[in-house]
């Protein structure tokens, strides 16, 4: 019974979470891996999680946490490795239109990327993003503002396009 319920939850949410995680990591393979780990942990607690109002948010939070953790490890590894510039992302076939945005997103620090994706793609409010990432609302606002400014700088798009609201 619980297994059926987990399978239904998994099938219903997988694609959506994969899209969100892909934007945060910039790489589908990484996103799939993180998501499997997060779903795996969810499956262990499914008896309890199934009663949650939004188990999807729980899985997303775990995956985002894992993504941040992995990014930190990658930075340390790259730094210790002679350490010139971060490794280039693996080639992904993107249209010209989205290529710049993918590149701009990759340049953002993980915290800003997470805030941008949760707020602008998932559609969470600032307070919801704060709760999801377990950080103060003010920090979310700062990350959103800096993230948008960096995107604008990189994309050379007029400021009002990403104006807050």
């Amino acid at each position: 019974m619980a297994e059926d319920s987990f399978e239904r939850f998994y099938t219903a949410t997988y694609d959506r979470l994969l899209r969100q995680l892909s934007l945060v990591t910039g790489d589908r393979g990484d996103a799939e891996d993180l998501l499997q780990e997060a779903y795996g942990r969810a499956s262990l607690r499914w008896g309890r999680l199934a009663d949650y109002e939004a188990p999807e948010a729980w899985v997303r939070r775990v995956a985002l946490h894992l993504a941040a953790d992995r990014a930190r490890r990658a930075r340390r590894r790259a730094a210790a490795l002679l350490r010139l510039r971060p490794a280039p992302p693996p080639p992904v076939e993107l249209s010209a239109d989205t290529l710049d945005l993918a590149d701009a997103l990759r340049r953002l620090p993980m915290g800003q990327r997470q805030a941008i994706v949760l707020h602008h793609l998932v559609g969470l409010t600032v307070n919801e993003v704060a709760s999801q990432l377990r950080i103060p609302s003010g920090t979310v606002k700062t990350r959103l503002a800096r993230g948008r400014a960096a995107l604008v700088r990189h994309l050379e798009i007029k400021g009002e396009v990403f104006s807050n609201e």
Partner: protein
Amino acid sequence: MSDLRERLDRLATELTQGAPMPPPEVARRRGRRHRRRRVALAAVLVVAVAGISMGVGTGQLGRRPAPGVATPGPPATVFTPALAAPTVGKGEFAAVIQDPASGFPARIRGRITGCGPIEMPTFALPQLVIGEVRYRGRWVVVNVAPFPATREPPVKHGVPWVSVNRVPLDGNGGLDWPLLVAEQPHTRLVLERADGSRGSIVGAYRVVRHVFKDGSVVRDETVRERTGAQVAVAWDCGRFPR
């Protein structure tokens, strides 16, 4: 903002286009693996805590073979007797450092966190074994390059080489921290698998510091010459390449 949302949406669609959904069983298996790891870790902690609280470990620790303190001497390309390489299990690396300088630990042991080709914008090492462990609030990272680079990094160590880096947790990445390097002709490499996924390297080390220009490492300067003290590193990637 709506433009940003649309563009993010399009990007997400392109990034995930055609991605197959793995069956839920895969996630469950992964969950079970996660639980097994945690149980094993908890068991190790319980045993360690019990051992310490009963005072059993004290005598044992004292009897462990010490890596020994090398007597400083002239630089040597021959190191006799060679330091014995530590033993490792699958997925593990271990290092022993004689006469550790600049705050390096005498022994390091941990899980391998990366094993395979490393591609950087300016250089490419065909194979590298990396392990990192937390040590006194820092990370100690061990790198091994058994084969020549396909594109040389600006800092050319003689291959095979091994380096041990300390990375502080204050965010600067440890780029300006001394690192320990053993390289040809001061190393002896033993590959137990031809592809390099299991082996050991032993050699006399020196301590160097990176010299930067325009934010990039251009060369190393030696801050401590070789004294004859050796570093021995063994690794077993298990599955390879990873």
